[in-house]
């Protein structure tokens, strides 16, 4: 869990177009991604922004967990003057010192695209002061790499404590953001950059993106969070097992339980007609649970996507083929309703679903539900042909 202050180089040197479209714009994109990754990695992580050039370095955003503020301020920065690295870093350190949550670790990320005017000794002195105060520093050097290389390397060596600080030099050519995403600056968060980019739903993505540790860097920084995540994953697995076992036992009561469990899992609405859909939603419910509630390891994320797709499919199939299916269902209404509850359990062992059938209170609802089941089974079952014959 970190408090990060990003120092931006908005000097005249950043107008240069050797990084597309300009050094400044490439930098802004990288900062946006970085801020996103940091806030996704931990809900309490904060990011602040500071500009290094101009009359004096200015803190534009004090460390905040609100990504919107950071993105917003990036659009209002003007290019002006020359960078003053030493005072910027000291101001950043002050901002970190006055962070709200003292449990957060301190980090400064510096983007440099202009020649550093301070001499090596001064930089090393500043670095030592940072190290003494437990501040980690990441430096992104682009644009003026050769001139700054020696100074920045000395700076990094002085500030680095046990590998917590990094220096990334980006040559002109590749996109700055891409190089950074795969570098140790992003990877330090357990690869959550990827989770942020491609996750299904915010929670699933942020939680599922961590590859280094189970559930992310939890044991080291947040043992209570790790425990809570593990416990909820266990509970979810138990619920799935119980649901599968209940479905296998071909009893109406068991299925009603399943309906209730499924309904609560997906926070179903009250109306019975809608509950029919919610029942179907409940079938991917237990599967989607891990992704939404607790952490999801890679495999579960795929299931979430599949489940959501199938839910969408089922719903659209229900709407499209409502007329056609209704005729089918109406023709064999009584026959379908009774076999449906019993054949459904036969079908379920093949897929991780809870077959849901509401108690036959309302014939219309029953028909909807039956055709829903048909649609689901048709689209999802490998052994579809056999079961279709059974039902007919």
């Amino acid at each position, binding site marked *: 869990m970190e408090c990060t202050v990003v120092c931006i180089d908005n000097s005249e040197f950043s107008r240069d177009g050797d990084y597309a479209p300009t050094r400044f714009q490439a930098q802004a994109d990288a900062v946006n991604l970085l801020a996103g990754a940091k806030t996704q990695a931990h809900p309490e992580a904060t990011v602040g922004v500071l500009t290094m050039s101009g009359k004096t370095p200015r803190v534009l955003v004090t460390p905040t967990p609100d990504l919107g503020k950071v993105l917003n301020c990036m659009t209002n920065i003007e290019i002006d003057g020359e960078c003053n690295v030493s005072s910027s870093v000291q101001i950043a350190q002050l901002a970190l010192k006055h962070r709200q949550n*003292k449990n957060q670790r301190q980090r400064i990320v510096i983007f440099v695209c202009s020649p550093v005017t301070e001499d090596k000794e001064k930089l090393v002195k500043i670095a*030592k002061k940072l*190290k*003494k*105060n*437990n501040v980690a520093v990441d430096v992104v050097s682009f644009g003026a790499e050769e001139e700054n290389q020696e100074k920045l390397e000395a700076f990094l060596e002085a500030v680095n*404590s046990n590998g917590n600080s990094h220096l990334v030099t980006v040559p002109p050519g590749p996109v700055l953001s891409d190089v950074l995403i795969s570098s140790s600056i992003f990877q330090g968060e357990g690869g959550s950059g990827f989770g942020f980019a491609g996750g299904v739903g915010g929670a699933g993505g942020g939680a599922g993106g961590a590859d280094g540790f189970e559930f992310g860097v939890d044991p080291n920084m947040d*043992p209570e969070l790790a425990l809570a995540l593990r416990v909820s994953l266990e509970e979810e697995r138990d619920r799935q097992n119980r649901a599968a076992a209940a479905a296998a036992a071909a009893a109406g009561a068991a299925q009603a339980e399943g309906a209730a469990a499924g309904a609560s899992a997906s926070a179903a609405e009250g109306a019975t007609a809608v509950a029919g859909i919610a029942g179907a939603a409940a079938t991917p419910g237990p599967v989607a649970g891990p992704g939404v509630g607790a952490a999801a390891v890679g495999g579960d994320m795929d299931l979430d996507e599949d489940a959501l797709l199938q839910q969408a499919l089922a719903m659209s199939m229900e709407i499209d083929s409502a007329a056609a299916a209704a005729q089918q269902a109406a023709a064999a209404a009584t026959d379908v309703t009774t076999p449906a509850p019993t054949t459904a359990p036969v079908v379920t062992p093949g897929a991780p679903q809870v077959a849901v059938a509401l108690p036959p209170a309302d014939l219309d609802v029953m028909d909807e539900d039956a055709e829903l089941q048909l649609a689901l089974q048709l689209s999802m079952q490998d052994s579809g042909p056999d079961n279709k014959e059974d039902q007919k």
Partner: protein
Amino acid sequence: MAKDLLEYIEFSTLECLNEAPNHGATLALKQGYREQDELYLESDTDEQLLLNIRFTHRVRIQSIVIKAIDEAKAPKRVKLYTNRPSLGFSDTSSVPCAQEIELSPAQLAKGDPISLKLVKFNNVDVLSIFIEDNQGGEETTKLCKIALFGTTGEVFNVAEIKKVGEEK
């Protein structure tokens, strides 16, 4: 009546500024580690150290033990601050300290307990130990043991009440 306050130290929030990577504060504080002189706490960039210790209960600290076998690198001036969460090096010059101790080589070698002003250390949640410099003016400071002795404030010992009743 003073007992070792080790069990009340919250190690999860223990913070030691300017400690060397492999010679951290836990080596000087934790049971077992602190008894071994080879496992020591050493400073990193310069000779100063700042330890922020949080307690699980409010404690009354009566004495402190600091043991160091390396004479030149042993701590000399030590300042203690109470109830200042996340004290930083820059704060040490501005914030008044609860007590300032100057350690003598004899005290350090034997690890004698040093009594503290009771009034100032009565209700302590967070204790900050600032080691300002060392005996020999060396670049780093080394110490092998830090122990705190005192009592926990509002402990209601039912067993003691019974005894009094029996006496009567």
